[in-house]
């Protein structure tokens, strides 16, 4: 992990309140697994950094692609940053999806909202390893949908929107019964979604990536913890920023 002033090489709106930000620097060469994130200091006006997951890594260009949603003043200020500006970035942070250890032939990816981006990085990595990928992507409404065509280039895609304006009306959990043939699942999104996915896919090997408000983002402050399910574990918790954000679903209590 390092702190670096990275240069913005692309920055554009891609959906409702959703932006694509591409940053160049030496950090991309240290990204080890999909699911890792960076911790961004938007400006001196904001006290805490913002964790943003890595959606793609381009090692030739030395860049990382981040997708973020405007959630408040900090992310709104981030939208004002322009190509050529430099951003104070800490990372790559966290422990991502353990792709080297995977024993899977067909993966089901389930993403909700701003939980979709890290799954794109994962999908590309799985595909490169000859693993078949299919995705269920959930959004609030048609205006919030992004990256579906990118996922389509890697495998089958099913879209769910809460208001039914695109794809299946409802949640990703409404789509899961419509698909089969997968042997492992990977999911990222709001905790309530992950909880539903975990219950529905009990018995299927999987990995989930958890979102939480963070303090330090390096594992020192204990702000973003999740209770662990293993009673043998004397710690009784996992740190989302450093032990995670990716966990096995049976490892944590959501």
């Amino acid at each position: 992990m390092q702190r670096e002033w990275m240069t913005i090489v692309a920055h554009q709106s891609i959906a409702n309140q959703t932006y694509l930000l591409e940053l160049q620097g030496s950090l991309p060469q240290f990204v080890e697994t999909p699911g890792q994130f960076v911790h961004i200091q938007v400006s001196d006006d904001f006290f805490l950094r913002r964790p943003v997951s890595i959606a793609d890594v381009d090692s030739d260009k030395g860049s990382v692609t981040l997708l973020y949603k405007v959630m408040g003043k900090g992310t709104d200020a981030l939208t004002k940053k322009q190509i050529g500006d430099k951003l104070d970035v800490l990372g790559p942070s966290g422990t991502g999806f353990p792709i080297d250890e995977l024993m899977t032939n067909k993966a089901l990816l389930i993403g909700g909202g701003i939980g979709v981006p890290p799954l794109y990085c994962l999908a590309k990595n799985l595909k490169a390893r000859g693993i078949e990928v299919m995705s269920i992507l959930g959004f609030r409404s048609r205006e919030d949908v992004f990256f579906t065509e990118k996922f389509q280039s890697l495998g089958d895609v099913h879209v769910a929107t809460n208001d039914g304006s695109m794809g299946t009306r409802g949640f990703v959990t409404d789509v899961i019964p419509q698909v089969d043939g997968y042997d492992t699942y990977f999911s990222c999104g709001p905790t309530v979604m992950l909880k539903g996915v975990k219950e529905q896919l009990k018995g299927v090997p999987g990995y989930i990536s958890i979102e939480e408000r963070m303090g330090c983002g390096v594992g020192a402050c204990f702000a973003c913890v999740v209770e662990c399910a293993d009673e043998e574990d004397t710690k009784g918790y996992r740190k989302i920023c450093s032990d995670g954000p990716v966990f096995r679903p049976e490892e944590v209590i959501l």
Partner: protein
Amino acid sequence: MIDTKVDLPGLQLKNPVMPASGCFGFGREFAQFYDLSQLGAIMIKAATATKRFGNATPRVAETASGMLNAIGLQNPGVDAIIDEELPFLEPYNTPIVANVAGSTMEDYEEVAAKLGKSTVSALELNISCPNVKEGGVQFGVDPELAYTVTKLVKEASAKPVYVKLSPNVTDIVTMAKAAEEAGADGLSMINTLTGMRIDPFTRKPIIANQTGGLSGPAIKPVAIRMIHQVYQAVNLPIIGMGGIETTDDIIEYLLAGASAVAVGSANFKNPYICKELIDQLPDALSAHQFSSVKEIIGGVHHQTTST
């Protein structure tokens, strides 16, 4: 040559900068960014008699010039800290200040007794955590309880004891005097100010615990005022803390009466902050025409207005 050394009870500091308790874990994470032996001392995360999971999440929220937190004293318990965390820090040859927390008098006594036999250089008595339901903060707002728990901890261990004062009181001087009378060796001040934020969209408090402790530059003027008051009223050395981010902040704390400082939530913003401040301090002191840290302590000039 600028002299940055400070001698406090139990703490021979090569410089007056240390990370504040609760903002630095047990040092492991920050050891990947710089050599921890550069620090004046390390104040480690609170220890309780048995392990604590702490509060529900979300535990943090941003505020103007600061943040709210309600971690709830999450820690693996004093035994695990002594067995598993202290051995990691010992090779750095930097004084360790252990933060002692509890819910009952017996808890404080047990933790202090165990840490008293460990390799830590001093104890910081946490009677001011605003984020635990029982114990904790009551000890820090009632002078009689503060006196009793300080005396108990002094008797339970031979280590110097720094009492960490809560700013959530009407009269900070009364609390400082109670600690002094009970035999405290020093004070650390201030802990966080109790605060709250509400999300206008969900209409719910942002922090699961509802309230949290406010830290960061927002609280610095409160800390400076309280240290200035206490410095004039008691004879104990003070470790100052609250929103320190620059070398001028450090000088301001020293002028108010602090003998050393602790950097808290700024570590979250910039993990290199303590090292950067330590590196910059000699030049900053000389820019202000100081040749040592010691000569600054309590050096605030009282302006008198004549009519």
